């Protein structure tokens, strides 16, 4: 019974990392510009993420190491420092975007400009990390994050043409603006396969002391949890495809355009549910990105780390997320547009993807770490495909950002 509860919470928790400002923005942009035709990007990204998340959990259970630990030990300090630098830049941009998402949600309900909320939001994120425990942060934000199911309700209220929706799951070439289409597809992949998710997941497995009895639970949580998140992301895209093009809105360039997305389906409740979904999911992602960064640095340098421990027992770990939050809120406070920052961060995430993904191929086949729980041919094929995809995405990101972004 206890394990069932942990699995359920794990599935729900996955929504917290999956649905965030990048996912909401890119899904809404895709739906407005290309109808249902980019659903395949969410589906492919989710399958890749399921494999990576399952592997990072399996690695943690089998080796009692986090992925960051494994990367440093297996590939040496130089490779780890390079990865640390790249992932830190990505995490910083993601955290700034998530803080921007929370501030926008507050702007929508209060009418006070988002910039004014940057410092209070950053302080709340820091305070929750300073005072909270891993379980409280994970489970609390995840359960509140269920409000994002309002997008799924919105889909059923708007009753889409289901056959057309199903066709969107098959990759097709667009009939207009192929570069822009490619850019949004890459941004969706960047939003779905964020390195902080699988680095964070393996740290969470260690924090929650997953033992060998958790191999099955890990598989269920990674598969159902990520699929659950993907359903919500797809729902956002479908609602956008139904709400915007009939009104002549095909370019989404600001969150003010996204805010009324649910009003055609749910009226006044739609507006407040959207704001709540944006605020809560972005808060959850901000906590995960901050913690993920602190885990990465602390594990890499061999410091004490645990969100469950008091800050005085692991001061360096606490200092990392404190400094990280202090830097990340600044772009929003000085008025950088949160959506532009989000789109940029998604593209940079896509660019950095190979650095986060390649180590899996080696770590998951190293018996010194995973013993008999290494990858089989299906998982290895999946990793090779994901690596190939990540290199293609990384190579085309910059040209697409310039010509199609």
């Amino acid at each position, binding site marked *: 019974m206890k394990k069932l509860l942990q699995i359920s919470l794990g599935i729900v928790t996955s929504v917290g990392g999956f649905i965030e400002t990048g996912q909401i923005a890119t899904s809404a942009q895709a739906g407005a510009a290309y109808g249902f035709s980019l659903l395949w990007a969410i589906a492919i990204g989710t399958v890749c993420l399921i494999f990576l998340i399952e592997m990072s959990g399996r690695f943690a259970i089998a080796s009692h190491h986090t992925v960051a630990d494994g990367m440093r030990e297996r590939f040496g300090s130089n490779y780890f420092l390079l990865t640390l630098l790249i992932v830190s830049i990505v995490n910083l941009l993601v955290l700034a975007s998530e803080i921007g998402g929370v501030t926008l949600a507050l*702007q*929508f*309900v*209060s*009418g*006070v*400009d988002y910039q004014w909320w940057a410092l209070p939001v950053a302080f709340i994120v820091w305070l929750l990390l300073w005072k909270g425990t891993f379980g409280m942060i994970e489970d609390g934000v995840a359960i509140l994050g269920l409000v994002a199911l309002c997008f799924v309700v919105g889909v059923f209220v708007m009753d889409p043409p289901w056959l057309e929706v199903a066709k969107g799951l098959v990759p097709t070439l667009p009939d207009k603006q192929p570069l822009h289409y490619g850019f949004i597809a890459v941004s969706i992949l960047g939003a779905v396969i964020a390195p902080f998710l699988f680095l964070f997941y393996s740290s969470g497995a260690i924090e929650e002391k997953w033992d060998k009895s958790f191999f099955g639970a890990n598989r269920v949580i990674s598969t159902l949890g990520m699929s659950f998140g993907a359903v919500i992301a797809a729902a956002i895209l479908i609602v956008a495809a139904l709400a915007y093009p009939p*009104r*002549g*809105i*095909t*370019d*989404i*360039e*600001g969150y*003010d*355009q996204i*805010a*009324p997305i649910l*009003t055609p389906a749910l*009226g*006044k409740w*739609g*507006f407040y549910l959207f704001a709540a979904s944006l605020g809560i999911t972005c808060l959850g992602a901000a906590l995960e990105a901050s913690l993920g960064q602190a885990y990465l640095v602390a594990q890499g340098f061999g410091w004490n780390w645990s969100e469950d421990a008091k800050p005085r027992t692991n001061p360096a770990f606490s200092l990392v997320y404190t400094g990280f939050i202090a830097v990340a809120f600044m772009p929003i406070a000085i008025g950088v547009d949160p959506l532009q920052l989000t789109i940029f961060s998604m593209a940079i995430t896509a660019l950095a993807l190979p650095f986060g993904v390649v180590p899996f191929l080696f770590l998951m086949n190293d018996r010194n770490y995973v013993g008999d729980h290494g990858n089989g041919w299906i998982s290895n094929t999946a990793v090779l495909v994901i690596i190939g995809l990540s290199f293609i995405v990384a190579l085309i990101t910059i040209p697409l950002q310039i010509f199609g972004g």
Partner: protein
Amino acid sequence: MQQILSWSASAEMILDARIAKNVPEGFTDLAVEKCQTEISDIASQLPQTARTAHARAAVVMLNGLISAAHDEIGHGRLEQGHQHIAELHRYQAEQRSTLGAGG
């Protein structure tokens, strides 16, 4: 012009939602202002040529209609606001068909 019309249609959607009391006044004020700023910014990037003169004139008209509708709704004159929105909608449709005809 496509981007301008998207921002203009967004302003229309927000004002429509405000008339139905589906969005709060504070949000409407900031969001409509953002739409108008974006429309003006995009228009200011258009080169000053005879070919873009029509687009610049359309931007003035669109922003004027958005302001008028916003003003009426802000003062609680929903019927007049609704009329301005209907006019905005018609004007956008005209511009879209002009854009389509021009390729």
